[in-house]
């Protein structure tokens, strides 16, 4: 069966905005989502390991991160809505069939996320200076760490299946009743699945490291100099491990699983520049962290955060290019007619800018008082 036979007709309504606009917001949203998502994807696991086997400074780092985690998750889930929204606008013809084929695993993300999120709250509510966690709360932290990694695996499944149309006919026919999918398929036969998932974990380790430096330099300024020095050194080690992991999995993904035509395109002009930048960019935050291995400074910490944001943005752009190249065999997502909704778009942009202004005002209003000093600011939560 030709997989293109399984792509439905285009929407009679057309795109509500030009493709470039939709994909820009999709990539921007994914970049914003990736930051906090990385911190929970790899960070909770590292925090659990640090709390269980780490030094006193590692305990402190773990406690800080886990106290901040509820807010980080809220922001990450929130930012994740943007790429999901624009994916459904521009990629609906492949997104819906792929997720329906794996409907139950996809649906289970909501349930797993609920447990994982509450698990983090349970753990965070038990993290107090000098007090031992109860076994239940400790277990909640470990369960959350595992659930978030499992959720990452399911996301990798969904988005790799979205472009792996060649697998659709077999998956569909083996998991359906009279042509209607039971929704039990997983894209495990796709050679790109594992390296994608593991590569993301490696990149997530680097983001956790960059966030550690940012936290130590900007948010944890009331912490001792020893802690901040430890944080710089720890971040360097973590970033290095993440970088090596990312490089290895990236090489597996690029040279071991990409179709020849995709690789040829990404290693030829003009995409070679993007490919090279994506591969080399993590070196910048790594160098910045290297300079801070003995003492984290506020300026360099902010620069580290910005540099890591750049790494994530490049990664998101590259992923978008690869996604379109993989799909181009089956579908040209840029070819749909546009039925521009100008006035709603303008209203949205005005609200977007006004909203950013209000967020900036709110952040400014809390800045003079204190920074996000978790132990005190969470005292209300810790009491419970």
């Amino acid at each position, binding site marked *: *069966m030709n997989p293109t*036979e*399984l*792509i*439905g*007709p285009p*929407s*009679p*309504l057309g795109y*509500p*905005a030009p493709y470039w606009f939709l994909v820009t*917001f999709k990539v921007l949203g994914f970049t914003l989502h990736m930051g906090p998502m990385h911190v929970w994807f790899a960070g909770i696991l590292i925090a659990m390991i640090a709390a269980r086997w780490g030094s006193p400074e590692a305990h402190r780092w773990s406690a800080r991160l886990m106290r901040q985690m509820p*807010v980080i998750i*809220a922001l990450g*889930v*929130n930012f*994740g*809505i*943007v790429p*999901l929204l624009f994916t*459904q*606008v521009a990629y*609906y013809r492949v*997104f*819906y*069939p792929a*997720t*329906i084929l794996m409907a139950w695993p*996809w*649906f289970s*993300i*909501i349930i797993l*996320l*609920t447990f994982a*999120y*509450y698990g983090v709250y349970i753990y965070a509510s038990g993290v107090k200076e000098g007090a031992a966690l109860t076994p239940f709360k400790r277990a909640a932290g470990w369960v959350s760490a595992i659930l978030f990694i499992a959720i990452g695996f399911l996301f990798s499944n969904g988005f790799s299946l979205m472009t792996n149309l060649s697998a659709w006919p077999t998956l*569909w026919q083996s998991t*359906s*009743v*009279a*042509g*209607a*999918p039971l*929704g039990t398929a997983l894209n495990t036969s796709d050679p790109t699945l594992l390296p994608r998932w593991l590569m993301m974990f490696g990149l997530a380790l680097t983001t956790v490291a960059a966030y550690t430096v940012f936290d130590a330099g900007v948010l944890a300024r009331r912490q001792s100099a020893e802690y901040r020095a430890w944080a710089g050194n720890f971040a360097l080690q973590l970033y290095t491990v993440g970088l090596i992991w990312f490089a290895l999995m990236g090489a597996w993904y690029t040279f071991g699983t990409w179709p020849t035509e995709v690789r040829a395109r990404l290693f030829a002009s003009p995409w070679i520049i993007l490919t090279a930048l994506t591969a080399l960019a993590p070196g910048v935050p790594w160098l910045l962290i290297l300079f801070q291995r003995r003492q984290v400074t506020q300026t360099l910490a902010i620069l580290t955060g910005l540099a890591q944001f750049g790494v994530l943005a490049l990664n998101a752009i590259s992923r978008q290019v690869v996604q379109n190249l993989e799909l181009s065999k089956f579908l040209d997502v840029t070819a749909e007619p546009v039925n521009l*909704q100008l006035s*709603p*778009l303008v*209203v*949205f942009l005005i609200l*977007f800018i*006004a*909203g950013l202004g209000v967020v900036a005002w*709110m*952040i400014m*209003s*809390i800045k003079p*008082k*204190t920074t*996000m000093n978790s132990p005190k600011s*969470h005292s209300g939560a810790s009491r419970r």
Partner: protein
Amino acid sequence: MHYPSWYVPLLTSPMLIAVIAILHVLVSHYAVGGGLFLAVETRYAYRTNNREYLAYLHDHAWFFILITVVYGAITGVGIWWTIGLASPLATEMLIHTFVFGWAMEYVFFVLEIVSAFIFFYYWGKLEPKTHQAIAWIYAFSAWMSLVLITGITAFMLNPGAWSENRNFWVGFFNPQFVPQVIARTGGALLLTSLYVYLHASLRVKGQALRDLIASRSTLPALIGAAAVTIGGIGWYVFLPESAKAALTVASSLNIFMTLIFALTIAVFVMLYLGPYRNPHWVSPGFALLLFGTGLMVFSAGEFVREAVRKPYIIYNVVYSNQILPEEVATLRQKGYLEGGTWTSAWVRTRYPNVVQSQQINEAQLLALPEPDQRELGKVLFQYHCSSCHATREGYSPVGQLVRGWTPEMIKALVENPEKFHFFMPPWAGTPEEAELLAKYLISIAPPRPGGMK
């Protein structure tokens, strides 16, 4: 038919939407009303310098965040997840029409999250004026979220003149918009008071403070109840004729409507006798009873709101079985199996001998062996009927619905479902395909129960 039809045995996949949606609205309305409650009451507590009440509000804000930011946000995303899986064509239509409505709502959602965290985590660290301003930013943002989402959900029930010009604003400001915004705002106020009673009854030990909380939350509850009533009347007035008829004819909706009326009166009576006249009555048991009754009213209301749209998901735009009304005539001519993306691929793979000149030969379908004809009937059932019906057991099982019917009756039903029941979508296939579906239905229909005179 543009997309694969997710088969969920017993329950049917759209029922998952109903489950998630009901679980979500019970919290999302609290997310709106609770924001207003915290803004108004924090202002009152600061103004009267009531430290004890402020401490309670801090405690309540933590409960509020745990419920709304975590559970409310995830179930909200969960609705997205589920509608895409169970009703992909309707979701496609909605998202291409209202993507900027959702994007606007997203801006307010960001403001909600940021202000909620600052409001709670910086409690006691901000100037009272700034703290109150943050609370009002949350309250306004949450209400705007309600307004924006209601424009879209109300559109599904009555798109008004949208079909004529497909204009965003015409669709958004549809006839159901104002009544539903009033009803949902009222619902948010009412439900929040019930959450407050329950939380306060469990957390506050001092009778004086508990009485204060009970009495201050009564007025919003009563205003909310009045708004729900006014909005509900408007909702009914602007219902399409078919939805009004569905309320009268569908027995399950009769029961739910009766439940809604009876339980709403019970909530009114309890509010009047309890928090209004006798604030000290608000014990954990009383608050739980009031809360449970309120949740039942809301759940029943949401179910009715979803159910009255039949046979549409979006009124006059998408049928409940994922077919566009304008596609029906073509499908009747060239065949549903041929016209459906996934059904066509299925037949071509499984029954290549019925494909001639790149088309499914409808006459050939009836020449297939009987088991194959029934199997193809089952394919038609999965794509044409399973959005609303289980097979033999489960939600509205079609086998039981045609129990004891003659083959002629079943065939007539298949060919004219909308004439048998106006809340069913029309048949969108050829007579040959109707024959196949009828054969399948006959095969799963149990005989007429024995022992009847």
